[in-house]
């Protein structure tokens, strides 16, 4: 069990080491580091008995700042393990899809590994201060990733994303201070036993939860997500959609809901309302976008709405579905952004759907077309892919609590299918019009066939979504007991 803590150390060590080595080694160090992280995750996933994952079991706890009761305390349960696994998968594929980065390469992979390491840290922390430190640590590297290496309107997108994150962080800070000052403890396991007074919970819960939910892209505080995704480089979008947005949802579950269960019950229906609006609104807006990355960006808002709806159901099935959806969306969004940002944009220098539709890309890049079809199918929730398993679990859970939400969400899913198919058809299977046959804007774009690194990255992500889609029990068996042990269900 202790070895999973090494994911954090290995990643940060990799980040520091590559600063001091010649730039030829940089991407190999980044790849080795992330693969080591993923290997540790998989070993831990396979070797840990399922029964041990039912509670938030401490793996390491040493005093850090004794005078303030802070400990360096890491713990693991089924939810954590799932999130750590998706972090590892996203990280490896992100590095593979960034293989072509030449401009200020060392800095790029440094910031990238800091984000990954921070995410590992958040998922594994069992001390509130430690969790918050890792949570805030992720913000600034994202700024640099986007502002230096991004594309469309990058400085604006980066600043917006950073300020939104920090805005949420301000509420989180306040909520954590209140919990800490009231109990004098920062240990998550101790805090989740403490009985906070109901009136405290009624205001402390929304403060803390909204703070976290900003990062999860809750409507109406989601606007940073599409602009941020579009401005970000491919790796940035993949990490952002793949894991960083999950930090918010995970922390909302682990901290806000677990600490203030009564506050959660008071507010859960409002979260459900916002979640459903997010699902439908995200899908509807995605339907009208012309930039492929904006389509995917808004689809992320929609998919994260499912996560929030699952959390708001307050029953074991819905919450487990939410965790499964975090895994699933992490993989699928990474795949979608990889196709849009790396495979298409890198070669055609455009993401405009209308321009792409004349290019006959399915002939030029069959592998990209294949990947995008799979990703689109998974995103729409076709059975056999992880998206279906997760969303159906959430909807069954929601049916018990909010039947109306299920009806509205069902309509929303039609919209999801509509915009996904629209993007798929326009980008890859557009009718070749006579006047635009000669469109290839860049002289060498047809020569650049899909590289091995891209194929490996895509296969890893496709494998993950198929494996979980065909056999969701492999994750649900680990998630469900951990969720059932959480106190807000009782």
């Amino acid at each position: 069990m202790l070895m999973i803590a090494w994911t954090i150390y290995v990643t940060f060590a990799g980040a520091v080491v590559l600063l001091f080595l010649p730039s030829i080694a940089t991407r190999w160090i980044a790849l080795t580091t992330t693969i080591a992280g993923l290997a540790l995750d998989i070993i831990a996933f396979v070797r840990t008995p399922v029964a041990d994952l039912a509670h938030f079991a401490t793996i390491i706890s040493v005093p850090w700042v004794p005078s303030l009761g802070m400990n360096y305390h890491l713990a693991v349960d089924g939810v954590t393990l799932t999130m750590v696994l998706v972090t590892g998968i996203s990280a490896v594929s992100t590095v593979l899809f960034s293989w072509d980065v030449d401009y200020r390469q060392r800095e790029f992979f440094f910031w990238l590994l800091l984000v990954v390491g921070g995410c590992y840290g958040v998922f594994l922390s069992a001390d509130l201060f430690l969790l918050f430190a890792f949570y805030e640590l992720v913000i600034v590297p994202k700024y640099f990733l986007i502002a230096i290496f991004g594309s469309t309107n990058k400085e604006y997108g980066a600043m917006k994303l950073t300020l939104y994150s920090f805005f949420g962080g301000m509420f989180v800070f306040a909520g954590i201070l209140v919990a800490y000052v009231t109990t004098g403890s920062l240990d998550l396991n101790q805090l989740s036993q403490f009985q906070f007074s109901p009136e405290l919970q009624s205001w402390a819960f929304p403060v803390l939860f909204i703070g976290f939910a900003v990062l999860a892209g809750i409507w109406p505080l989601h606007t940073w997500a599409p602009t941020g995704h579009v401005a970000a480089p491919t790796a940035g979008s993949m990490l952002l959609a793949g894991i960083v947005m999950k930090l918010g949802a995970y922390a909302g579950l682990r901290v806000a809901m677990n600490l203030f269960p009564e506050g959660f019950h008071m507010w859960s229906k409002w979260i459900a309302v916002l979640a459903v609006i997010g699902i439908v609104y995200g899908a509807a807006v995605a339907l009208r976008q012309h930039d492929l990355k904006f389509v995917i960006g808004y689809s992320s808002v929609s998919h994260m709405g499912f996560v929030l709806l699952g959390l708001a159901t307050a029953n074991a099935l819905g919450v487990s579905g939410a965790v499964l959806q975090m895994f699933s969306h992490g993989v699928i969004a990474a795949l979608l952004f990889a196709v849009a940002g790396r495979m298409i944009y890198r070669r055609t220098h455009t993401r405009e759907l209308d321009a792409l539709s004349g290019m006959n890309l399915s002939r030029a890049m069959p592998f990209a077309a294949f990947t995008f079809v799979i990703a689109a199918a998974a995103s729409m929730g076709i059975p056999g892919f992880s998206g279906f398993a997760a969303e159906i679990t959430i909807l069954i859970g929601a049916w018990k609590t909010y039947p109306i939400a299920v009806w509205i969400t069902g309509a929303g899913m039609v919209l999801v299918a509509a915009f996904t198919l629209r993007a798929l058809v326009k980008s890859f299977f557009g009718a070749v019009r006579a006047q635009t046959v000669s469109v290839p804007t860049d002289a060498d774009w047809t020569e650049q066939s899909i590289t091995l690194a891209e194929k490996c990255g895509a296969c890893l992500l496709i494998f993950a979504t198929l494996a979980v889609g065909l056999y969701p029990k492999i994750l649900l068996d680990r998630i469900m007991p951990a969720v059932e042990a959480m106190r807000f269900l009782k």
Partner: protein
Amino acid sequence: MTTLASPTSYLELLKLASPEAVVVITALLVLAIGLTSRRATAGAGVSPSKPTTRVTDMVVARHWSSLVAAIGIVVAIAVVMLLPRDAVLFGGMFVITPLTSLFKVICLALGFFTVCLVRSEKSIRNPGEYLAIILLATVGLMLLVGSEELLMIFIGLELLGLSLYVMAAFDKADLRSAEAGLKYFLFGSTSSAFTLFGISLIYGMSGSTTLAAVSAKLASAPVQPLLATGVVMTLIGFAFKIAAAPFHLWAPDAYQGAPVISAAFIASGSKVASFVVLGRIVLIGFGPVHGNAGWHAMAAGWSPVLAVLAALSILIGNLVALAQTNLRRLLAYSAVAHAGYSLVGLVAGTRQGFSATLFYTAVYAITVVGAFGIVAVVRSGTSGDDLRNFSGLARRDPLLAGCMAVFMLSLAGIPPLAGFFGKFYLFSAALKAGGNYGLLWLVALALFGSFVSLYYYLIVLKAIFVDDPSLATSSTIDRRSSYLLQRITVAVLSAAVLLFGIMPDTLAARILAAMP
């Protein structure tokens, strides 16, 4: 515990005050070196055949005087550590406690780093005199930190203040430096007048100038209006010193106009010592009239006064900093905001609150010395310190850019840097002390302030990391090797900021243990 009632045993006094004596002697030595080498240069200047001697003499003098000053400070630190843990002389005029020793060491260390940075300042033509004044200012810091008697505190303030005025105006040829010096002098002397007036009222009402006696008097009788006036006057005087709004107006011009190293010292050492003294005055001297700044239990006393100062500083400092395009001015307004955060711990009025304030100011001082050190190097390379002079620094000079990122992010309160822990420590102490979340309003305001502040710190980092180097006038950039000492100093300071962030207990536990 050594207690000295009558001034018979001067030997004992000399022993306990030996760190200060060491620094004063060093100052005189450095002054002597400066004077002798200047005479040599004057002689060289007469004969036109040897123009190079003058330059080399200058450089040699600079090296020697810096070296002597640095050694003197190191010796003084060693002496502080060797002295007894506790001593009280002349009824509190001169006090040694673990806290004073710790902060004397910190002040000396700040002086040391300032001395290390002096060589980057080309505009200083008389390094001997300049270093001597830095050392005298350091003595002022030590006297301030080591006293619990109002008159002695005032003498320390004046010694420090007069040295700083000279330091601010040291670049005689520069109009802005003269303006900075004059402005700082006018505001500073006004604030001294306030403090002295406040102290005289307090003395008149309580019959004593030692903090313990003032406290006993305040506890025994209801507070008369005249005494309250005295308390408020004293606080206003200190608000000038720490640049808390609305008494901050000197800061932007002084920080921007003064020689960079002087600004660094004004922003760091002077602030740390002022907070140590202010904390002791309000907690020991004015303890009985604490009052309450909680929103549902507001009661008159010094803590609501400080709470208002803190709130105004956080708001004004952060909001005005948003509009700055000159890095030194930006740092000045951010200093106002940071004074506000630090005051939050004093408003709490608890042992933990005070130690959080001290931790925060100490870390802030380290950070700001480093930031000004980088400004000094960049300024002498690109002849300016506007934000555009920093464009593309990441590619011109990755080490300085990385260190600047550490300093700016620590000021913004981003983990794993010391500023993050410092803010958590401060705000949790304040919230704990308020009783029933009484200080939540102030903490929420401070959190909002630090949210706003991230924007302008990121603008600085955007210039450094994102913008194109060609925006800066990069033609005149000096060779890196000429700033080796400054670069090492800055790197050490940023390593310290990182260390105190990852292992805050190395400093926080020491401060907490040293609290009375």
